[in-house]
């Protein structure tokens, strides 16, 4: 425990170095900027800005990426509250009560509350991360390929079933991502898989191109001519942002509960951010004395989901960093970025790169404070940015994506990849498939395959190895439980549907 605090102190020393601080600041600022723009969420922000970090050292690069992440997450809340425009799915919940607050002239207060609850929740998440990660690392060292395979399977299954929408569609998208992950040279035999004669595919599908296509171009394809002009906005003044004492009191308990929900779900691999915020909101509604007032601008309806989203964001880093297993698409993207920098997250990360790990944790805190400081003076500018018409925005963004994809390897082929994945992503989105699991599958797929093959090599082809190891067996049991629950709910929902017309 003391060791953790000492390490944390070391991390603060690193994160406060002027150069690192500067990159963290730039990350938060750019992330916030892109997050505010209509129609662009954290996934778009990170994929667009990823190429910028390639010229940096690993530590500042990671600090900057983390800054982009929570900067864009907060930026998205601004659009959700002031415009009823959720550019990142988790913010759909924030819209429910945030936008009514704006219409009542309380938009500034809602933003202030969002800021306070996200800062509080992030702080709690960071503390959990400081003490939780070393524990998990100790456990993780005893993991063999069978355990790792089972945990990854849990992450993939939970990621597909614990999100909103059709589970079978999410599973399909995860599998598509895993198939994309197999493209390229097979590490064990050197066989070229699914390269179709393209030499450029020998190293696999480019992560940045995939993310930019699926989250960037596909979004533009879906939104063009549909995201219209945004009318004038309520003016938000800085002094409006500080909530009154009564509002603070109203927000306190929901904030605590939201943080708890986020922390709990962040620790579970694979549970998406959207479901977390929905659960936090539903919980508030359930225990509220005035549940019917939700949706009309309740303080609790803004504070709880925002707190849940931000504590989950922080806690999500625990499995990502200490096991090397990302919890959701954003984490998968960050993990992929780390690997591009030559760093393999996993139990050895804290030992091999203590600077990176503890520096990152310390930078979270610093970054979140920077975020608060930035948003007070800049809120007026952000509100203006919200009014940038989409017709100017997306052509500029397409250029940034195209040149960003090119600059990863100075290769034109990546631009073509962006185009193909963009069209693919848009077709799937139009058919109401969730596209985020593609990225999760893409990053996890090769790891799943490697551990699967290794485990079966050790057991000489005996599948029983996965249930003979106690930890692996327990995790697989949990996977089956998740699947069984899914089938149960699906059947119950169907029988409910059958009854519905009779009741009507």
């Amino acid at each position, binding site marked *: 425990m003391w060791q953790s605090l000492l390490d944390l102190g070391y991390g603060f020393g690193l994160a406060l170095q002027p150069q690192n601080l500067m990159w963290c600041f730039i990350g938060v600022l750019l992330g916030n900027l892109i997050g505010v723009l209509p129609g662009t969420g954290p996934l778009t922000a990170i994929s667009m800005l990823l190429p910028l970090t390639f010229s940096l050292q690993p530590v500042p690069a990671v600090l900057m990426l983390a800054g982009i992440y929570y900067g864009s997450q907060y930026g998205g809340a601004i659009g959700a509250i002031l415009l009823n425009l959720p550019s990142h799915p988790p913010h759909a919940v924030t819209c429910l009560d945030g936008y009514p607050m704006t219409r009542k002239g309380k938009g500034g207060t809602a933003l202030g509350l969002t800021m306070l609850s996200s800062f509080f929740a992030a702080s709690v998440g960071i503390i959990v991360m400081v003490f939780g990660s070393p524990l998990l690392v100790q456990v993780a060292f005893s993991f063999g390929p069978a355990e790792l395979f089972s945990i990854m399977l849990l992450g993939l299954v939970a990621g597909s079933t614990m999100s909103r929408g059709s589970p079978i569609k999410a*599973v399909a998208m995860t599998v598509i991502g895993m198939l994309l992950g197999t493209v390229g040279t097979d590490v064990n035999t050197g066989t070229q898989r699914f390269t179709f004669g393209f030499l450029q595919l020998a190293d696999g599908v480019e992560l940045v191109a995939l993310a930019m296509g699926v989250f960037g171009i596909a979004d533009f394809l879906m939104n063009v*001519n549909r995201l219209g002009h945004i009318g004038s906005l309520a003016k938000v003044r800085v002094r409006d942002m500080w909530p009154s004492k009564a509002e603070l009191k109203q927000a306190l308990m929901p904030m605590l509960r939201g943080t708890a929900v986020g922390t709990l779900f962040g620790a579970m691999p694979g549970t998406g951010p959207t479901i977390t915020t929905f659960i936090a909101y539903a919980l508030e509604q359930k225990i509220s004395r005035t549940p019917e007032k939700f949706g009309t601008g309740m303080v609790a309806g803004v504070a709880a989901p925002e707190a849940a989203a931000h504590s989950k964001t922080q806690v999500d880093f625990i499995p990502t960093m200490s096991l090397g297993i990302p919890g959701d698409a954003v984490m998968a993207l960050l993990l992929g970025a780390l690997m591009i920098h030559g760093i393999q997250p996993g139990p050895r990360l804290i030992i091999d790169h203590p600077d990176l790990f503890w520096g990152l944790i310390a930078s979270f805190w610093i970054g979140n404070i920077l975020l608060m400081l930035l948003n007070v003076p800049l809120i007026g500018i952000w509100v203006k940015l919200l009014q940038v018409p989409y017709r100017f925005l997306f052509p500029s963004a397409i250029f940034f994506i195209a040149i960003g994809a090119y600059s990863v390897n100075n290769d034109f082929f990546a631009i073509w990849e962006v185009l193909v994945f963009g069209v693919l992503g848009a077709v799937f989105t139009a*058919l109401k498939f969730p596209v985020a699991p593609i990225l999760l599958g893409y990053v996890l797929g090769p790891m799943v395959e490697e551990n699967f093959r290794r485990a079966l090599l050790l057991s000489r082809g005996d599948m029983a190895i996965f249930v003979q190891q106690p930890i692996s067996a327990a995790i697989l049991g949990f996977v089956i439980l998740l699947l069984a629950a899914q089938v149960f709910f699906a059947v119950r929902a169907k029988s409910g549907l059958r009854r519905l017309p009779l009741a009507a």
Partner: protein
Amino acid sequence: MTDGNSKAGGGNARRGLLERLMSPRYRDHLGGLLLIVIGLGAAFQAQGYEVGTLRQMGPGFFPTALGIILALTGVVLFGTAIAANARLAKASKAAAHDTQQDLEDEPRYSPEWRGWFCICVSVAAFALLAEYSGLLPATFACVFIAGLGDRENSLRDLLVLSVGISIAAVVVFWWGLGVVLPLFSRSFM
């Protein structure tokens, strides 16, 4: 890229059919079929790599397994879509209740061919022009063509935007970040 273009070109004649297929009633049929095709295609392609046995897995084993799983999810999706439609048809007969409304409560959009075409061409134009004629023409064409995809953009607005982004491209990427693309390459002249 050819995907987007051929759809944009051939779509006009079959607009009705495609729109119908994308509607809530039929899109899961289409999605399921798509998954089956991709899954079986991947599994088939993977047969070309050595599949091996559980004991000694070859490079084809995992892709084959994934392809089959994907095809299976496609079958399940297709099956549930048929079952859901059958149930709704039955329910609407029994209750004489217009279920069409339940199915289509979300806003419906007609396919956005102009936007799709311009965005796809814009990305392709950047890739081609950047390779053969340099950063500046590529940037200008990319922004200009993409902007044409929006019905509200006027030519004057687009010119201003494209020139502005081109200047930003030179300052930020060429001069600032040192992207190795030449501003104009020789073949441009």
